[in-house]
């Protein structure tokens, strides 16, 4: 039995707002409602990184939220995909270049699907998630790490200790 084929049938979503205006979040929640009903694809909004497969990030990454973003990303078990929802999450949007803002999500974690729009429409989100599912099926269980902000995970006795992976913040490359 090929277990990988079931990834597509039960994608559980974690939704994280890295510092946006909540516009995209409302659209994500609209997907759960009766009109768009993404539960018919087996999707659940879990609110818990340890049990989810898809990380939906909205908003630009602020200095305050970047460690939390990486920490939550590290707590998701592989295989996992990241969908950045909305203009801010993709590029920084209107907040780009501000003193408190670090730009798009891909500055810190590897993003698989970019969904454009300010705010994104539910149809676009669903489309993005469906594309992410295609990528999810191809992924392996090898460990994935964040792009800029990371500490080498400790290996002890054949086990990987990824507990304090976002402990140290290196200054952003500039």
């Amino acid at each position, binding site marked *: 039995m090929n277990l990988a084929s079931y990834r597509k*049938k039960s994608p559980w979503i974690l939704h994280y707002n890295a510092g946006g205006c909540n516009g995209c979040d409302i659209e994500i929640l609209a997907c759960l409602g009766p009109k768009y*009903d993404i539960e*018919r694809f087996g999707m659940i909004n879990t*609110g818990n990184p340890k*049990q989810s497969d898809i990380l939906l990030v909205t908003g630009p990454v602020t200095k305050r939220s970047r460690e939390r973003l990486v920490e939550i990303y590290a707590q998701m078990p592989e295989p996992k995909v990241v969908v950045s929802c909305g203009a801010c999450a993709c590029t920084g949007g209107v907040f780009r270049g501000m003193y408190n803002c670090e730009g798009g999500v891909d500055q810190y974690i590897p993003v698989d699907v970019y969904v454009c729009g300010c705010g994104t429409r539910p149809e676009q989100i669903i489309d993005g998630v469906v594309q992410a599912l295609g990528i999810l099926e191809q992924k392996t269980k090898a460990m994935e790490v964040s792009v800029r902000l990371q500490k080498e995970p400790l290996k002890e006795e054949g086990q990987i200790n990824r507990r304090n992976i976002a402990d140290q913040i290196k200054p952003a490359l500039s």
Partner: protein
Amino acid sequence: MNDLLIPVLLILLAPLIGGLVYGFERIIKARMQRRIGPPLLQPFYDFLKLADKRKMIVHSAHAFLGIMHFVSLWFALAVLLLGGDLILVIFLHLLSTSLIILAGYSTRSIFSHLGANRTAISILAYEPVLIIIAVSIFMLTGSFDASAAFNWDQPLLYKMPLAFIALLLVLPIKLKKSPFDVAEAHQEVTGGVEIEFSGIFFEAVYTAKWLDYVFCYTLVFLFAGNNILLGIGLMVFTFFYLNALDNSSARVNYKQMLRFSLTVSFSLAFINLLINIFT
């Protein structure tokens, strides 16, 4: 032979049955909200997907206690289905709950602790009621064995309607349904005790929930005596009642739950006990 075969089959297939009930429940719930809902086999897809995830845990004791929660719950269910002593069954269920509570406490995680606290409090809410119901069944059948209730030639429901209502009022606590889902409360404590489990280790806790369905519906079935048709009717009624209640009510806090359960449900069960004793 035959009267042993059915319980054994039920015990072996309990996770499957529970999974189907859960899948069906998700559809019904979606339809009540005018959604289409997931496919019937969705719980099993979830199950297979979770098996495929990279394994990670907080620490070994926590993961192990989660697995043992599943095992001990299955055992409690087996004793119930084989017609064992009801008080023993209630205590064995308490044992399995105690393991998940300990698992919740064993990590230094806030949500896990909150969930464990709330689960411990919900024990206080439902356990006395269940014991009183078991004693009422004893008053009627003269035996604490579940098999005596299964073989009783007249539905227990006629003699103990109030106890059945009390059971209906505590079942949402046990199955973590609104308005009494404080222990799980996805929007507040993101699942409570189950939060730190992931991948294949979460599977144990996830399937244990399915077993809980079978456990609770068997308790409902007890009220039908040997009348199987009525038993199925009661189970279907309870199923729709639970989902309608879940969809139509908001969550109360733990104090309200405790107060409601210890005043209303408990007194209902107690009045029923008095009726059974004095008639």
